[in-house]
């Protein structure tokens, strides 16, 4: 279903968006009319009643029941329409249809994890089938975040220690930006992800590929893939520049300085520990901002990442 929306709004790609846009446009045009009346009044009166010379005594009538009733009743009627319409739309957004595909969303500083029903998971990319209602069960691992997809007109806060729920049904295949809309600190504006809407068959294929964990790839190749899909890339560069975390370039097998002053050899066990319990031994000069990947990465994936990081030394 394709909808025409006002050029100010991003293209509409969910079943609830068209209604939101229609209401948006209704308020826009009613408001525009109101604004034009006020502006026209101001301009007309300034032009016609501009003071020339002495002010003198002016017109004394200071009320008019008919006028006052008109300009109260008309806005009230419009407001009631808008209120009821808005409430109905809101209920539609909040009542999840039966049989929706349920995906668990976890937000944390500063990335998103999406867990699909049969074990496949992805970071910063939500893959969903087109034309199917998708229910999102969301929670945060730290502070409040907010799940926002402009093209779907969907937004819902994501809280720690409590689940919030929202849903959408995408109407067109494509890739849509997903933002964090509740301020969450340093990485807030980089907490970007995407919703990739694909055909039902591609979705099944994606699920398979992701639950078989890199079958057909070497560990290194699989690790290289995970390096981007699991968002390591946000903080760890490959070219030697330090971002929020140390660069991986040429780091394996070197002796590194820890924040407590001690030194340690960067080996497989240290890497594994850093992935699962990043704050246990902090590299010197870095803030403890890395989240734990406990529960997000399976053993084979950790192996793959370690293999990949090791491989970076040989190049």
């Amino acid at each position, binding site marked *: 279903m394709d909808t025409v929306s006002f050029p*100010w*709004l*991003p293209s509409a790609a969910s079943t609830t968006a068209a*209604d*939101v846009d229609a*209401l*948006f446009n209704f*308020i826009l045009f009613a*408001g525009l009319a*109101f*604004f034009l009346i*006020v*502006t026209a*009044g101001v301009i007309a*009166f*300034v032009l016609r*009643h*501009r*003071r020339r010379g002495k*002010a*003198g*005594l*002016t*017109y*004394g*009538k*200071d*009320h008019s029941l008919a006028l006052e009733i008109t*300009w109260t009743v008309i*806005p009230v009627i419009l*407001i009631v329409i*808008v*209120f009821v319409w*808005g*409430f109905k*739309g*809101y*209920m*539609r*957004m909040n009542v999840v249809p039966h049989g929706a595909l349920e995906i668990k969303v976890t937000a944390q500083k500063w990335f998103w994890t999406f867990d699909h029903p049969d074990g496949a998971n992805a970071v910063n990319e939500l893959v969903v089938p087109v034309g199917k209602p998708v229910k999102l069960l969301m929670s945060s691992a730290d*502070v*409040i975040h907010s799940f926002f997809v402009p093209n779907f*007109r969907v*937004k*819902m*806060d994501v*809280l720690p220690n*409590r689940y919030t729920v929202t849903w959408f049904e995408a109407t067109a295949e494509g890739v849509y*930006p997903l*933002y*964090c*809309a*509740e*301020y969450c*600190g*340093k*990485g*807030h*504006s*980089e907490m970007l992800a995407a919703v990739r809407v694909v055909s039902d068959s591609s979705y099944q294929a994606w699920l398979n590929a992701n639950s078989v964990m890199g079958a057909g790839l070497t560990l290194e190749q699989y690790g290289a893939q995970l390096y981007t899909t699991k968002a390591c890339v946000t903080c760890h560069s490959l070219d030697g520049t330090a971002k929020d975390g140390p660069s991986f370039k040429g780091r394996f097998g070197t002796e590194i300085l820890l924040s407590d002053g001690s030194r340690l050899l960067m080996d497989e066990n240290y890497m594994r520990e850093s992935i699962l319990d990043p704050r246990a031994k902090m590299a010197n000069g870095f803030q403890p901002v890395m989240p734990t990947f406990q529960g997000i990465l399976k053993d084979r994936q950790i192996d793959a990442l370690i293999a990949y990081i090791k491989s970076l030394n040989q190049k």
Partner: protein
Amino acid sequence: MYTGPENSYLKQPRGLKSWLLTLDHKRIGVMYLTAIMFFFLVGGLLAVLMRVELSSPARDVVSAELYNRLFTLHGAIMIFMFIIPSIPAAIGNFVLPLMIGAKDVAFPRLNLASWYIYVVGSLIAVASILQGGVDTGWTFYTPYSTSTNSAVITLTFGAFVLGFSSIFTGLNFIVTIHKMRAPGMTWFKMPLMVWGLYATAIIQVLATPVLGITLVLLIFERLFGIGIFDPAMGGDPVLYQHFFWFYSHPAVYIMILPGMAIISELIATFSHKRIFGYKAIAFSSLGIALVSFLVWGHHMFTSGQSELAAMIFSFLTFLVGIPSGIKIFNWVATMYRGSISLKTPMLYAIAFLLLFTIGGLTGIFLGTLAVDVHLHDTYFIVAHFHYVMMGGTVMALLGGIHYWWPKMWGKMYNETWGRITAVLVFVGFNVAFFTQFIMGSQGMPRRYYSYPDQFAFLHEVSSVGAYILGFGFLIMVIYLIHSLYRGKPAARNPWGALTMEWEAASPPTTHNFDKDMKLEHGPYDFDRVEVEDEEMVKA
């Protein structure tokens, strides 16, 4: 520099000490004005710095950490140190007693105390910068604010202290308005400015304690690890949002009602017209003040609150919207068959009418549940509240400053520069902020220090608008200060107004009036009483 009467409040008594220990509401008003304008300038500079960073999507001028500190400080300064005290404590202090024909406010010592508390609170808040700043946003949302290692306690403590100065001013005004009106000034003979300040004072006294308590709870949680809001300690972060907005929503009416109050005066005086719908304007201020306590939940439509709560809050939000709309119609109707003079204060009043209308109308989008879900926490919100606070309150404040400038200092500012600046400010403001409505509708989230390329053009335009705006303010500072030294001496009643403050000398004597005041005509009897404006003192 000075040409007014010998015993003017500016001259008598003399010396720094006589200012620091003054109980004169006019001097306290002037001291408040200086302080708030200073913070307005600081807040404005921080804003320009943010706009410099945002003028391109790249992460170039400041770091993310610094950007987050900038918008927190900008917001906190603008809200707690500038806009809340601006009209009531600075302009209101100066004109309220004069307008009701009184010699001073009811509690002059409390008045001075409120100024000192304001200064101390501001200094505490500013001290947070020395501790590395705060990065939570002026809203201090938990659990972010309980977990960040920035100087949250200091800044919230500053805001807590500032709250008392606001409460003191409110209390003082309520009693002053009840008890000190000149004989003959019944409630419905009061200027609308007084009604507006009265409604504001009620909110200041009733709502501010809630913010105080909330901030103290936040401080306790951080200092002693008591779990109130932080889920890690068994608290509830959404509870914090309820507490915070229970104050902060009424607080937006602490910001706008005094602006509306000034606009009523400006439109009546410069249209030389009896105000249309006096009672409707007066009662709608009170109505807004009362209902404003019941709409806080509209900040939380996407927080996961129940649908029923959302529906009620949406409904009540619209209910406060209506009186504001009615006021706009009343002001426009006042201009009908007036004798309109486009002096600088009137230009600001017209700017207010247009900008506040846009601010109010965009509020309808946000009060509408289904639409707010999309717009919440985007630049649409940023544009909306700047249209209301800057396009509304700040325009009214600027109008008021120019309007009462001759009374305060006994000097006229330069009208030509005043008008040029008003136009610059109007244009700059719209370029800076209208663009943000578009970005917000397209999905640009707020509090982002870098952003996707698709928003680059609009952000760049918005920054240019901010520079024009900043330039306008620069000119204003220059010609206002210049007028203190070189301005022409002002007449007693330069605009031909009928409210009582214009019967005092310019600048007023220490005791305001040299006789006991009695109401002789209503504040807007332009259909009955002949007044002439004679801007300058006749030589």
